[in-house]
């Protein structure tokens, strides 16, 4: 056989293989079947939910046992196709067509399973295709749910319109695997964002990376009076001001509870940081108030945050003593005692959500107002997030504690800021922890972290929210392989929706991380 003939044979063979692979997914529904009135069990659960028109294909696996499978997708306004196989892998072009044609309408899914030579058709389920698009990207931290030890942490941005995930910062770049945390974007854009990284063996090496466009700089972000660096950030929607809390975070471990551990703050305060000038100012040193989780209103005129009051006399004395010292973290013995004492009541620590008006001209905050008085109701309210239209405040509620992701009873709550009505967001509720939520830029979608799948590995769930605050059934972030979430032994942490992909190159981030940090200037007041 000569050279040209060989090439022809190879090309034809490849085409055949491609054709077979490409065509093998499509099929037809059986003509005879037995209908049952139960919904098929599929994984992930994409049954009777509302999906955005620009979401990636929602591939799933049929969990019913059988010899053969067929799945029919049919849009109310047109577009129909049938796929075979237990893993329902929807071709992207077909999926796009289905959603585009049926935007604002719905599509049905019929699942057929063959058992002992006989086909069974399960009850048809219908999914709505919303007219509201979701922001194209979501950024998150990938971290194993280890208790003391986080070996591999990465910050990633995933396109919600495809399966592409880009890891833009990985802690493997130094051998000591520093902790990376608290990524925050200004107004859901990637022009300005920040994240921290810390090395316990070399605190001077860490810092906060500020990204402006395509350039990154590292700052120390250290609060001199606290002796520690800034923690939870909230970038004001406009301007260069970032609100931080400074937190001395600790863990305690439970010997019996399935909760395993509790995370608490020994102390925390609010700080305002000017990213343009690398200056920070402590809002107020409040020894007996633990302020944390700042968040801005969409117009940047109000700062929301959580506050817990330390009630124990012994703890109050300790805190006063520590705060009197030049640097809080300097008095190691007192700090150790405080940490131990706080541990005893960490589970009962409860937060209210407060708000303070912000004066853009003077960069000052007004008097605190109670927004959600959870403490009076015997609960703790955390992670306040106002919807972009300013109508709603979403927050997480639990029986106590500072870190609700470790609380199985943690649920999402919604407060209508227009009427003042507060309710548990039952549509999103599950038997396990539901926490950390972010609104999309239009306010019509919400992403939140949930451990509903197995109680440990956090996954991202999306739900549509209408003008009245009613949410659809949440669905988990789609993956190319339906079993991806079963194989991935990492949690998705701190989901933040963004409307665009990152502009900065990873090399620039590592260059900044490896370089020296600019020392942050502590001032009394931001100018």
């Amino acid at each position, binding site marked *: 056989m000569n050279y040209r003939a060989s090439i022809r044979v190879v090309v034809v063979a490849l085409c055949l293989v491609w054709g077979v692979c490409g065509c093998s997914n499509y099929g037809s529904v059986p003509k005879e079947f037995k209908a049952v009135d139960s919904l098929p069990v599929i994984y992930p659960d994409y049954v009777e939910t509302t999906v955005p028109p620009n979401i990636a294909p929602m591939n799933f696996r049929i969990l019913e046992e059988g010899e053969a499978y067929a799945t029919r997708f049919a849009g109310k306004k047109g577009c129909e196709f049938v796929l075979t196989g237990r893993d329902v892998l929807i071709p992207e072009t077909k999926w796009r067509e289905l959603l585009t044609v049926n935007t604002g309408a719905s599509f049905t899914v019929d699942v057929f399973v063959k058992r002992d030579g006989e086909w069974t058709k399960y009850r048809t389920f219908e999914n709505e295709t919303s007219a509201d698009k979701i922001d194209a990207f979501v950024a998150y931290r990938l971290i194993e749910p*280890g*208790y003391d030890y986080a070996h591999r942490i990465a910050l990633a941005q995933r396109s919600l319109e495809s399966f592409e995930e880009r890891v833009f910062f990985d802690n*493997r770049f130094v051998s000591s695997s520093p902790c990376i945390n608290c990524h925050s974007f200004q107004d859901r854009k990637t022009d300005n964002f920040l994240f921290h990284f810390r090395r316990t063996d070399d605190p001077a090496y860490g810092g906060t990376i500020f990204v402006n466009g395509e350039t990154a700089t590292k700052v120390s972000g250290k609060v001199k009076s606290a002796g520690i660096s800034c923690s939870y950030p909230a970038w004001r929607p406009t301007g260069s001001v970032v609100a931080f809390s400074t937190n001395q975070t600790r863990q305690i*471990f439970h010997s019996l509870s399935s909760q395993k551990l509790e995370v608490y703050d020994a102390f925390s305060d609010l700080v305002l940081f000017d990213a343009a000038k690398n200056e920070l100012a402590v809002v107020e040193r409040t020894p007996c108030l633990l302020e944390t989780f700042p968040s801005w209103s969409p117009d940047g005129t109000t700062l929301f945050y959580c506050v817990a009051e330390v009630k124990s006399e012994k703890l109050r004395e300790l805190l006063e003593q520590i705060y009197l010292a030049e640097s809080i973290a300097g008095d190691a013995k007192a700090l150790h005692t405080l940490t131990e004492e706080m541990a*005893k009541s960490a589970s009962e620590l409860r937060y209210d959500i407060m708000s303070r008006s912000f004066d853009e001209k003077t960069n000052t905050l007004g008097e605190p107002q109670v927004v959600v008085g959870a403490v009076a109701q015997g609960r703790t309210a955390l992670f306040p997030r106002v919807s972009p239209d300013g109508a709603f405040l979403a927050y997480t509620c639990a029986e106590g504690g500072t870190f609700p992701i470790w609380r199985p009873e943690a649920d999402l709550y919604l407060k209508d800021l227009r009427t003042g009505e507060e309710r548990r967001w039952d549509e999103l509720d599950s038997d396990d922890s539901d926490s950390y939520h972010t609104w999309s830029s239009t306010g019509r979608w919400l992403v939140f972290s949930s451990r509903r799948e*197995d109680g440990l*590995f956090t996954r991202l769930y999306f739900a549509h929210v209408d003008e009245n605050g009613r949410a659809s059934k949440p669905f988990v972030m789609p993956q190319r392989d339906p079993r991806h979430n*079963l194989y991935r032994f990492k949690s998705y942490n701190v989901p933040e929706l963004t409307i665009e992909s990152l502009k900065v190159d990873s090399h620039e981030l590592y260059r900044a991380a490896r370089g020296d940090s600019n020392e942050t200037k502590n001032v009394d007041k931001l100018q």
Partner: protein
Amino acid sequence: MQENSDMIAVETSPHKTERAPRWNDVLTSFVFFVFMLYFWGWRYGDYLFVCQENSMFVPRVEFLTRWMQTPDGFLSWISAFFLQFAYYPALGGLIYATLLLIVQLLVARLVQFTGVARIFTFLPSCCLAIAQTWVAYYVYLPYNPSINFAAPIALAWTLFVFAGYRKIPSASLRVLACALYVLAFYPLVGFWAPFALVLALLHEFTLAERKTPGDSNVREVETTSKMKRVPVFRVVAIIVFAVIVPCAYYHGVYYSRICRVNIFVQGLLEDVRYDKNSITAVFVYGFTILAVCSVFIMYLISRWLLFVKRDEQSRRQQRRAEKRATIKEQRRTNTKHKKEEIKESDEARAIRLEKELRVRSARLSWATLAIMIGATFLASYHNKSFFQIFKSTRALTRQDWQTIVELDEQNPFPIDGATMLRNVALYHLGRLGSDVFNRPIAGLGTIEVTQEDYLRSVDNQSYYQLKMWLFNKRREVEEVANRALIELVYCYWGQTNIGVRLAMNNYVAAEDRSTSCLMTLATAMLINGEDKLARRYLNELTQTLFYREWAKVRLAYLDSPRFYEGVRDFRNDDSISRVIDDSRARRARAASFEEAANKYGVAADLVVEVAAFTEKLRSMRPLHNKSTLRVFPNLVFLAGVVDVDEFDEADAARQELILVSLLLQKKGEQFLKRADSYMKKFSAGTAPKGIEQGYATWRYQTYDKAWQECEYKFSQETLDQFAPFIDFFKEQHAANMLATPQIQDAMRNYCRGTYWAFAVDDSVYNHY
């Protein structure tokens, strides 16, 4: 064609006509293989088993792509594949021995040494074997568990590829091959790709081509007119490829995934596991590097030998042989009974000399091989505790408590890790209270290094300083033994939350590739009643080759009604009880053990066994929740393993455990407070021996002569043994001699196996 009598490079060995008979080569390699088979399949078989238990392989594309994040990922993946077969140590040993043999054969083929020199081709394999044993207890600190097989696989592959490279006739093609090889294989094997290019560089640098038709011993290669010219272009090109390509990959792909310093060592040396200054690092890194360097040096030598004229070589050897023969002859002529010497012909003499040379060479080869094997044996990490720990941890996963205790009894100087395992085994055998003080609690150092040794070392006596230094270095390694399956041990004490915490930490460190951690997590979740997580971990294990049966038995238990009935007993957690109402859980439930077992194709009695043991462990969980900072119970002295405040509401077994833990911690007052009520339940002399002895000891400490005045009647054995001890103790106490090393040794010897010996033992290793 011109001849150059000075620099002739040939592709075959100049010694070919003088090579020892092939049978000798075959036999030495065979003996080496048998030794390595014994070494890995039997001697270090348990160690190899534990290595595979701390590794993982599942046949899934996603699993492979996870590995491919770093340059040596594929190599590690292949290594994990082979390592899984060490589930059967003999099979794992066979694979490992075969790999090492292949390395040796390829090295021998590469360097073409003959005679005694050929024995040095075993050196790289021996070094790799030694390096692997020095990982020792660090297998329990998983980072890249499959590093075990990576080096021999990679070295064998590199040599194999290099052998093919040498067959390429065209120089341009060889350069192209170098470029393509490092481009294609650096992402797969890391360091080993540029290393292959280093060998190629050496090959090119020392290659002066010559074409001599008619000479059957010389292989035809490319012609060049200038025989001494160094192929500069080729050399530079190969250097450039070897350096530039990995750097390019680093900056383009691996920038965020490996450190810059690892560009050229990724795949050879593990980055994170050891303290770089520790003795472990010295041996593991050192011998691995030595293996690689020895290949390079041997090849360098073989290339140098190619430049020596064959004739000159042979003449020199012949002259040496003749000289030896002459000397021998002279000696013979000087003897008293002179024999009539048969005049040999020249040819016959040459043959005789050659034969003698061969025999001598063979003897020397065997001697050298024996030395090398012996050195490998001696230089490998080993001691009694080492083998005991690995055997015991295998028994632990099988819940074979009796074996653990028997193994411990064979070792007079148990280290902490051994004591930890023994304690949990005794508890599950129901003999903790009676047998815990039969043996030293932790004998390390109390015998090997004495107080006198320490004092002399402080006194700057060199020998004792060296002794202390060696002892401390050994301790560095043995301290890690305390991590031997510690997470599972906590679960076996009912401290499942701690076990989960450690297992998850180790699982994270192993980058989600540890069968052992998954098994512990699954076990803990079953005990805790957290079915979703249990199912997740078990489903992952069903994808492995050798642990799927283990997982299926437990999945069957999860689906059985007894699991769901069991979770109703949880007193502390609504979320666990909600499991009962979950519709998917209800759907998965079988009606009986048999049905559940049939569903997974396992034996029902295995499911019953798992159910019984899980329920036993569940009953050992703490009665009340306690929240603590980062504190781990001490498993040697059992401090914190059980909450002493739970004594009054605890069952008999837990009460016994509480009392033993107080005795181990020498907390006499707390012990007595609880022991009085405990001992009342026993008739005369029937209380567990260790507790009875402890009771006597602390009652004596508190009440002096009135120590027997209690409701419990001590056994005659205790009375007979304790009374002389008290007399001796009082005598030495009065003479202020109690703390002296001699009296301490005397008390230890006299009262060995009793609680009071433990109580008065002042050695630093007997303190909590």
